[in-house]
């Protein structure tokens, strides 16, 4: 997808990108491309000045996701797009999590390429779309060779029911964006207030102002994330994204934010969608508070912290 010409050998992306983008970048590196992984600020946002500095004459692509899948942070697309336009570099954005949730204007934001996915907006699973700007023209190499449909961009037959379903889902998402957004804001606030009112030492991961309200990523100090997940078997939450579920490593996204290892281990991601009810949020609060309190009662670390001992100062015996 991200092949350009032989004279452009450099790609810029961020450290908090979705696994699929990072893996594609690693593949490009194996092919001999150079990739710059931009660090992000503690609130999860890209430093736009740093991005501008990273652009070289041979930079062929800048890829920054619109909404982060783990922490829900919305990147400053408009500024990034403006810089890319000034420097003549194509701008790709992974808008899978943003579609139907925040307004996107490819012209205003200077987006050259945009990846979209249907199942994130209650559309059918197994279909997505790639927006390609025509003026100035962005050329891509097809993933599959064959019939060369759509001016050689793509080959093969498109599944009509999925495509129509995707279109219908987009139409509804656009119509319902305001309503869904208002509701997500209310529920997120309810969830946050409910948990914060009963449990202390909670950290919200990622910027709260530049955030899509359907996502809440919290770290509970002195609690082990996987134990909390096991305890919360009635709530569908995750300690990272499903895409990285194979490893017990703390989330690389949180590590990129500079979150300490122990706090990254205790993070839980709550998702709020169109069909989430108040009662479900209340139940989630009740169960989470119960589990966190239970785990903290068992935790010697919590006891020590409450007794005023700085855990960072302890020298643990090496085995």
């Amino acid at each position: 997808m991200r092949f350009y010409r032989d004279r452009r050998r450099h790609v810029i992306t961020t450290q908090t990108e979705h696994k699929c983008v990072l893996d594609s970048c690693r593949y490009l590196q194996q092919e001999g491309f150079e990739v710059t992984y931009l660090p992000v600020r503690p609130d999860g946002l890209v430093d736009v000045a740093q991005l501008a500095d990273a652009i070289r004459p041979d930079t062929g692509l800048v890829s920054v996701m619109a909404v982060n899948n783990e922490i829900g942070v919305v990147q400053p697309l408009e500024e990034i797009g403006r810089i890319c336009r000034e420097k003549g570099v194509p701008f790709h954005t992974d808008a899978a999590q943003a579609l139907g949730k925040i307004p996107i204007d490819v012209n205003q934001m200077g987006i050259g390429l945009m990846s979209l996915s249907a199942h994130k907006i209650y559309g059918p699973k197994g279909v997505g779309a790639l927006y390609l700007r025509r003026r100035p023209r962005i050329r891509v190499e097809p993933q599959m060779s064959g019939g060369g449909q759509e001016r050689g961009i793509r080959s093969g037959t498109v599944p009509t029911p999925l495509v129509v379903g995707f279109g219908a889902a987009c139409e509804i998402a656009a119509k319902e964006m305001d309503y869904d957004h208002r509701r997500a804001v209310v529920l997120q606030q309810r969830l946050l207030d409910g948990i914060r009112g009963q449990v202390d030492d909670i950290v919200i991961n990622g910027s709260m102002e530049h955030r899509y309200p359907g996502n809440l990523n919290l770290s509970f100090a002195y609690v082990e994330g996987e134990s909390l997940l096991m305890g919360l078997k009635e709530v569908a939450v995750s300690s990272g994204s499903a895409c990285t579920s194979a490893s017990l490593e703390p989330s690389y996204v949180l590590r990129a934010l500079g979150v300490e290892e122990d706090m990254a281990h205790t993070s839980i991601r709550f998702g709020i969608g169109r069909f989430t009810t108040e009662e479900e949020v209340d139940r989630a609060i009740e169960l989470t508070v119960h589990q966190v309190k239970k785990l903290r009662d068992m935790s010697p670390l919590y006891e020590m912290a409450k007794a005023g001992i700085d855990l960072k100062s302890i020298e643990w015996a090496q085995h």
Partner: protein
Amino acid sequence: MAAVAPTRGEVLSLLRSLLRTARQFSDYNIREYTCRRATDAFRENRALRDVAVAAAAYADGKKQLEVAKRQAVVYSLYAPKAKSIMEMKLQ
């Protein structure tokens, strides 16, 4: 065709039909959503005075009722046996 504003009775009858249809969804989340969305939309449009706008909103509601009726049947054909966790405690 001149737009005719729906009467109060017609509007209330449409809302009742929507809520009645919503109750037929077997899925907890969709049932709750349909009820909530219908009520919210009617509350939002309560202040509509413009005849054409009110008629359009009424027509849209009619269309949504058709969708809900159809989908309630379709979803019931493929309803999973597992209930939502929210319903288990309710019983």
